[in-house]
């Protein structure tokens, strides 16, 4: 009996020993392990999709970037009830770890970059039946990575440039904006050769050669490399690109969810309400049902209707009204851009001046709310499906004019580009403008440049373009700041040499010895 028990005991003990390996080898079959991924074309394809997915985040294009870029620029202001949020858009940075804006934007852009780097690091291990498909994917990822980098460079200037898949112990080096731009230029020059000029309808939303040229042109401009920018813009405006792109007849179509992916749009972020969950769920990285819509409208709608995190500055209304159209009407861009108290009076022919189905409230006074990208939803759901036009042909025309002017002064081509934008909204040719000094503008390089600042401001207001423009034109001299102050009181808080870039999230600086906080913070 006793012996028997010991034998049983020993047998059980032995059985543990002999099968310990199998008992402890437990694989996670909830998903695929990285070792089994990056094998097939389909893997590479889904790796690329994951990079696009980062557009649908609060720190990217779902909401916060709009508040920040418009709030800092002179076209917008934040009077948000959330004081920290509104202070951030006014150059009042108290807590550098402010989660809603600073760390969220920083983090989610780098998540996108990590996803892009994974594709670029692994795609060569995948066998492609069709090499063009591979080229296309590489082109897309290079475009997307540059796109994300371009915006964070515009916000923080001196950022770590991460180009390889990360590991946990990385402490990437900080780079200057010029160093970052140089890298993006290399990537996009490559993307231009890899991306197709046109795509079938099923691929709408993926970047084309034109999109890559457009982004590249913006980066060259930001880098003040005008001849290089001209080359890109030439392709778009005088070259092959003119077969695919043009201004749309109706300015308002650029911001309507029923006129998406039109010929004026070089690249737009595709928003959709396909994933309709019941509640505010955008930042859940593990949820396949996470929202694919944008909160741009909720973010900017007047308080009581939406969050009112950002609204427009009054000067926009005044500037639009300074110059009338050739048929003596107000510039229709005013109507499509903002809501303000006198819209009904100024556009008597328009019946649709209601603001989210309601009349203008008298206690809103002189305030101006952003109308671009609004829809007819009422009451507002958190999201809408209105695609955000990141790169618009009108922007390219004006950049072309600017670049040409920088190189050769106001050439006929430069003037033509400006006029194409003006003619669409029935404004007189610039040389014939009665409000502006057309003769001086079309003959003097400086005058032309100064005028472009206004022309761009009115054509591209509240589209996250203005802050980038202001940085390109320089925010280093008191005269400029004083002029900006006259339009946007937020610039009273602007400190030259400091406020042109945001503070890097403090936790990031604290814990990366290779990263210095931006000057003055």
């Amino acid at each position: 009996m006793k012996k028997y028990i010991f034998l049983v005991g020993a047998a059980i003990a032995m059985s543990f020993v002999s099968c310990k390996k199998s008992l402890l080898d437990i694989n996670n079959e909830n998903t695929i392990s990285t070792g089994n991924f990056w094998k097939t074309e389909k893997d590479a394809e889904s790796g690329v999709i994951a990079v696009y997915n980062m557009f649908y985040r609060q720190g990217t294009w779902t909401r916060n970037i709009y508040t920040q870029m418009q709030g800092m620029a002179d076209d917008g202001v934040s009077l948000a009830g959330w004081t920290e949020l509104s202070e951030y858009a006014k150059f009042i940075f108290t807590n550098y770890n402010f989660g809603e804006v600073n760390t969220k934007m920083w983090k989610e852009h780098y998540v996108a970059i990590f996803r892009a780097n994974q594709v670029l690091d692994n795609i060569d291990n995948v066998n492609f039946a069709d090499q063009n498909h591979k080229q296309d994917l590489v082109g897309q990822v290079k475009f997307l990575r540059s796109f994300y980098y371009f915006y964070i460079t515009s916000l923080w200037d001196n950022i770590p440039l991460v180009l390889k898949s990360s590991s946990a112990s990385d402490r990437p080096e900080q780079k200057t904006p010029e160093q970052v731009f140089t890298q993006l230029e290399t990537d996009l020059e490559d993307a231009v050769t890899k991306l197709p000029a046109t795509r079938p309808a099923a691929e709408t939303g993926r970047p084309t050669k034109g999109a890559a040229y457009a982004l590249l042109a913006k980066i060259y401009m930001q880098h003040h490399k005008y001849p290089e920018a001209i080359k890109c813009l030439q392709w778009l405006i005088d070259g092959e690109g003119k077969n695919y792109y043009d201004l749309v007849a109706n300015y308002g179509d650029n911001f309507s969810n029923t006129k998406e992916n039109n010929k004026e749009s070089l690249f737009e972020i595709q928003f959709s309400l396909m994933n309709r969950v019941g509640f505010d769920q955008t930042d859940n990285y593990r949820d396949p049902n996470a929202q694919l819509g944008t909160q741009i409208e909720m973010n900017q709608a007047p308080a009581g209707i939406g969050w009112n995190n950002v609204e427009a500055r009054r000067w926009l209304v005044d500037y639009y009204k300074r110059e009338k159209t050739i048929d003596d009407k107000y510039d229709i861009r005013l109507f499509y851009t903002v809501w303000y108290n006198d819209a009904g009076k100024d556009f008597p022919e328009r019946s649709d001046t209601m603001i989210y189905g309601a009349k203008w409230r008298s206690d809103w006074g002189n305030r101006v709310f952003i109308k671009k990208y609004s829809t007819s939803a009422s009451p507002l759901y958190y999201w809408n499906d209105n695609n955000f036009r990141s790169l618009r042909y009108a922007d390219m025309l004006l950049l072309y004019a600017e670049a040409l002017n920088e190189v050769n002064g106001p050439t006929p081509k430069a003037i033509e580009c400006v006029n194409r934008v003006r003619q669409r909204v029935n404004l007189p040719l610039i040389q014939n403008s009665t409000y502006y000094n057309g003769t001086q503008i079309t003959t003097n390089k400086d005058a032309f440049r100064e005028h472009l600042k206004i022309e761009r401001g009115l054509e591209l207001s509240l589209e996250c373009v203005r802050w980038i423009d202001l940085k390109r034109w320089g925010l280093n001299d008191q005269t400029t700041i004083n002029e900006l102050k006259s339009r946007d009181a937020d610039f009273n808080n602007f400190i030259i040499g400091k406020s042109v870039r945001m503070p890097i999230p403090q936790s990031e600086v604290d814990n990366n010895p290779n990263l210095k906080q931006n000057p003055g913070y």
Partner: protein
Amino acid sequence: MEKRSISLHLYKRLRVILLTAFLVCCGLVSMSQQRINGTVSDSRGNPVSGANIEEKGKNNVVVTGTNGAFTITVSPDATLQVSHIGFVTKEVAVANQTQLQISLEDQNQEMNQVVVIGYGTVRKKDLTGAVSVIKGDALRDRNSQDVISSMRGLASGVKITSSGLPGQSASIVIRGLGSLTNNYPLFVIDGIIGGEAHLNPADIESIQVLKDASSAAIYGSRAANGVIIITTKQGREGPVRVQADANLTLEWLPRYDLMDATTWKQFDDMAYDEAIRSGVAGVTKRQNHYDANTDWQNEMLKTGILQNYNVSLSGGSKNGKYFVSLNRLDDEGALYHTGYDRYGVRVNTSGQKGIFSYGQTFLYTRTNRQNLNGNPWADFIAISPTIPVKDPLHPGGYGYGDPDKANNYGRNLVGMQDLFIQKNPENVLKGNIYGQLSLFNKMVDAKLNVAYINYSGTTNTLRKKGNWTMGQGSDAAYLGYNNYRSDDILIEQTYNFKRKFDKHDVNALGGITYNTFKGQTNWTTKLDPLVIGDTYITSLDAATGSTTGGSSYQKAALISYLGRVNYSYADKYLAQVTMRRDGTSRLPQNNRWGNFASYSLGWRISSEKFFNVPFINDLKLRANHGTLGNSNIGFWDYQAVINTAPRAVFGVPETRFIGMTQSQLTNIDLVWERKTMTNIGIDAAMLKNRLNVSIEYFRAKSKDLLVYLPILMSSGNEGGNPAVNAGSLANKGIEIEAGWRDRIGNDFSYNVSLNVSRVRNEVLDLGYGKTVYYEFLSKAAIGQPLGMFYLYKMLGIFQTDAEIQAYKNKDGKIIQPNAKPGDIKYDDFNGDGIISSDDRQIVGNPWPKFEAGLNMSATYKAFDLAINGYGRFKYDVWNGSAAAAADFANNQNNFNGIVPWTTQNPVKDRPRIVFGDTRNSRGDQDRWLEDGTFFRISQIALGYTVPERLTKKIGIERLRAGATLTNLITFTKYSGLDPEFRDAGIFTMGADNASFPNPRSVLFSLSFTF
């Protein structure tokens, strides 16, 4: 003198009677008798008079004289039983001897207590490790619903912090923070790992807290944070014993002293006036204000009524024992629409026949909780008191902020509780069964133990249509069902070897254990539930919207080989060696196995011949050293996986595409975390065993700490920081436990015990090559304790423009040029002339200088009283509620009595209040630090036991009525709600983020035994 002579006289008379009886018996029973002379002495050789000498099995008794001598006539093979009050009863075989020298061992209850040490027991006097023991009796009158909080203040070196949230367990840390991931100790309940959350404290027989390496070593890899062994009650031999307890608790939660609407409006208008004056963008006039005057605390808080009933039946014979208990708890909750109820059944049995014995425990618990949304203590501050509770103009009908009347994002908690309803029913089935064979004349015990825990819980969510805060989008109504189920199986096979020869006493243990865990989550969410009238139908089938769902599972296994040898020589020299080898599925294949060993020695000095200190009854010195492991991390932290959730949309018409990517970074080379501890302790019993003192000194060093150390955001990591073997921490400390018990006369007995502990923590290494690690409020640097407050320092308030202009650095640069009178003057720590992130500095220490617990109890006749108190002394706390109330920057509420800076009343300690401006109210400044010192009388329990002669008449053996006051008295200067709060994580352990305060309560109890 008189008295004594009488007793002597009686004693002599008694002796005559006994001797006579003895002689009669002798004559009757046997003729073959032997006369024995002997003396009885104590352990130091002093004679013991009045000791009883009894021939075992016979009615033959003599008593020793004043010199300890006795004479008795017995049969030559008789056994003598020698007993005396205060000494351990001893049996001596006569074995034909005629002269006997009998030495009696001091009886010390404390020292002879049996301590459960894991796969076995030892007497406390043989213990070589640091173990605190808590008896079930000590818990019984505390009437806590949660095991951990019931232990509060009863053991040294154990820091327990209740959360106050209904149904949420308290947190517990033994001997400081040793790990960066998890400092939760291992609970072993009747040989089952875990499950303390569902244990009914009334069922507990005893709790042992194993604090050092040698005690905990048998649990090896799971024991790095200490082990708490709980045994539940077993039946005792005898007839059925019924015990019934009924408790009624009235419970309420502390409240802030917040402004009412009238006061608040005055301050708020002031904040707007200030905003207009200093040109805050967009502020042109005061708010129009709602007209309501809502006391949000009144709306949410009420007196909770908690009823708890326990009935147990126990009994048995030598061959079989049983204990059965039933428990019913109904907690109505002290918060609006919250509640918790529990049903529990326990059946414990054990039996024995010949060499075979078995035991079994079984527990079934069913609980149901209605959840609380969010943290009301943060929301009480966040919301304006002018906002009405109900507002028919809003979707759903609840009041909340309005851009014109109350520009405020505070949440209407009543609305939230009504519109977002979460119920959480749970079932727990838990049990073990063991069989044991005693072989070779009880020298070897072979035991097979199988334990099983099955947990299943559901979170049912009903989101009704409607809003509770300003700016909330128009959320859809939905139903959510989230099921979680887990199975945890433990199989243990152990062999125990016991042998005593001469003065050697050997006890050896060997075994193997296998533990497997599987958990599974399934969830479904469906939009648009059916609504009939005002009633939401909660059946998923009736909902009409789209459905989403998912599931995932977790699995783990652990195999361990264990061995322990205890050896003692002559009860004087004690030694223990423990070895354990663990293999876990949570670590990568190559690093899966870890070996852990510990060694300990003990020396009972008081047993030595040379030791002769009359007032010390027992003295033991012990020392040990050992290594424990920890692999308490996620199931698959070393495996890098692909996230298949990302989606994107392309094309005309829109098509959704599936994205895949790695989201979370991993470190694939994880190894066991190791903690090496050295412990030196002294146990002494003094003054006739009335005073018991234990002193412990320990040093612990953890290395290869498994931690989810935050990594840079620029890595693009998402979904939690990867586990890494990062860093090393040291903890050293001292613990003193002293207890005094005595009796005065026949009616009054009392005992007082005090435990004091002090821990010093030091960061030795931070991993990833870091020398310093920062969080929002704190800094961890090598050579410093964790979680030091690293903040901007407030120097004062600028009173005038001249002061602002005069505040310059050494180069003459004006440091705060944009400041206005009434703003905070911050310290330009680095002297560069601007206030920047480089000006943060170490301004506080969250580690208490020491912690203490004081327990007193007394009984006088039928009355008993117990008072428990504990406190923490000299440390800093960051008052998150005060920081959240800030300075009206977001139209939040604030506390009565604040005096902000104004031109009329330019105070020096509080800045001006400004709407829309956070410069003075930033969280990361030392303005919010306070001394957290407190001492709390956590419990006062008073009881009256009805005299037995009265209760007997109605068939009741014991009837006690009691009242317990909990948390009613606290001495502290801390201005937050409760100095005892659950911290927000080890890197910011001193931050009180408007934590849920501990409830105050009064409990009435009635308990019967019959």
